[in-house]
């Protein structure tokens, strides 16, 4: 996949959840431009073009970031905080996509400026519906700045 063409950045440490997410995005033909990174550290490297992604063009920012919360090394809230604190990236819509329904996670995410918070439904149909709907909304209906 051409890294310059990443439309959606999927930050997800669990491979089965990642596969289910891709499958849901595929239903709205959104899966072609998805880049999947496996933890918060890799996500930051990708977004800020550092480490293994040092050769990436920083100007080419993703149109949407789907962010899991609990991940090894750097967790989702820290990634969110860094994205929203940086002039170059703070306009990228970030959607938290997580198993957690804890109030404190929701409150903390919105305090840090998240654009949307979605709890992953356990049931397959609900999951596919939720993820494909949010992908469709942010990629095709929403007007980015």
């Amino acid at each position: 996949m051409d890294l310059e063409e990443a439309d959606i950045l999927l930050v997800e440490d669990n491979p089965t959840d990642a596969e289910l997410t891709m499958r849901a995005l595929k239903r709205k033909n959104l899966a072609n431009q998805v880049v999947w990174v496996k933890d918060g550290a890799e996500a930051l490297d990708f977004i800020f073009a550092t480490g293994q992604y040092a050769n990436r063009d920083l100007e080419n920012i993703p149109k949407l970031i789907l962010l899991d919360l609990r991940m090894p090394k750097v967790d989702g809230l820290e990634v969110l905080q860094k994205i929203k604190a940086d002039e170059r990236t703070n306009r990228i819509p970030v959607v938290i996509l997580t198993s957690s329904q804890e109030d404190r996670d929701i409150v903390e995410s919105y305090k840090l400026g998240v654009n949307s918070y979605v709890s992953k439904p356990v049931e397959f149909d609900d999951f596919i519906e939720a993820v494909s709907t949010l992908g469709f909304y942010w990629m095709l209906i929403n007007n980015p700045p």
Partner: protein
Amino acid sequence: MVFTHVLTSFLYAIEPVYNVLNTSLNEDYFRLLMLIIVVVLVAILAERLEKIRKLNELNQKLKIQTDKLEDANQELEAFAYSVSHDLRVPLRAIDGFSRILVEDYEDKLDEEGIRLLNIVRDNTAKMGHLIDDILLLSRASRQEMKMNELDMAALAKSVYDEFQTDVEGRNIEFTVGNLPNAYGDRAMLGQVFQNLIGNAIKFTRNKNPAIIEVGGKKEGKEFVYYVQDNGAGFDMKYINKLFGLFQRLHSPEEFEGTGVGLSIVQRVIRRHGGHVWGEGKVDGGATIFFTLPKDKPKKKK
């Protein structure tokens, strides 16, 4: 030492008295009187000191117990947190991939294969409900309460309206009496009505008409509320299990459920300073009562 200090001050204080009495009383008698007074004072002081020491000891013990309880609570919170996250992930994978198997390999699976996969999916759904209910229970125990004056009748009606899809096509006579207003947390008492009315709707499934009544009145220092139905009821023999966690008085084939609903009701009502009880008869309906204190609660942390 405090004691010697007190004694000296006392002796100084009675010196004028001593001087006056000295002229009229035998000095030995006076000394004896003094000695008695001092002995009594010492005894009183010693007793007081002992009481204080014991109190301090008790306080210390209480503090240790409180710390232990706080630790246990934190552990419970961490557990509920990891349940919400860690158990959902594998469950979603089981449900999702068994569905994908049906979708992608439908032509290769026969009817029996699809039936078996549906059993897998039914059971993941059940486990999902169980996890959700356990989380509700843990939330009912630790969530901060926002106390407001509540129109309990309106709350009961709005909760019933949320069951629209469940009551569709059924003949249910639902009535709400003149419930007194109460002080409580709207979300938590809403959850109480949701569980009680939900139960009433569930256990009257085989009745036509189903009769569900929400009532309440002032009784002494508290308000008593109840939700009554004419449904399957229960045997009073098992009354001690009614509010027990994961306890069920019906088989899953008769009525589905996780056995958590009434535990949540009990936790919420106890946190509000009230209590719960139930009455029932096999096939003669059930009534669940709960009380709330009449007085506006004092500010709690």
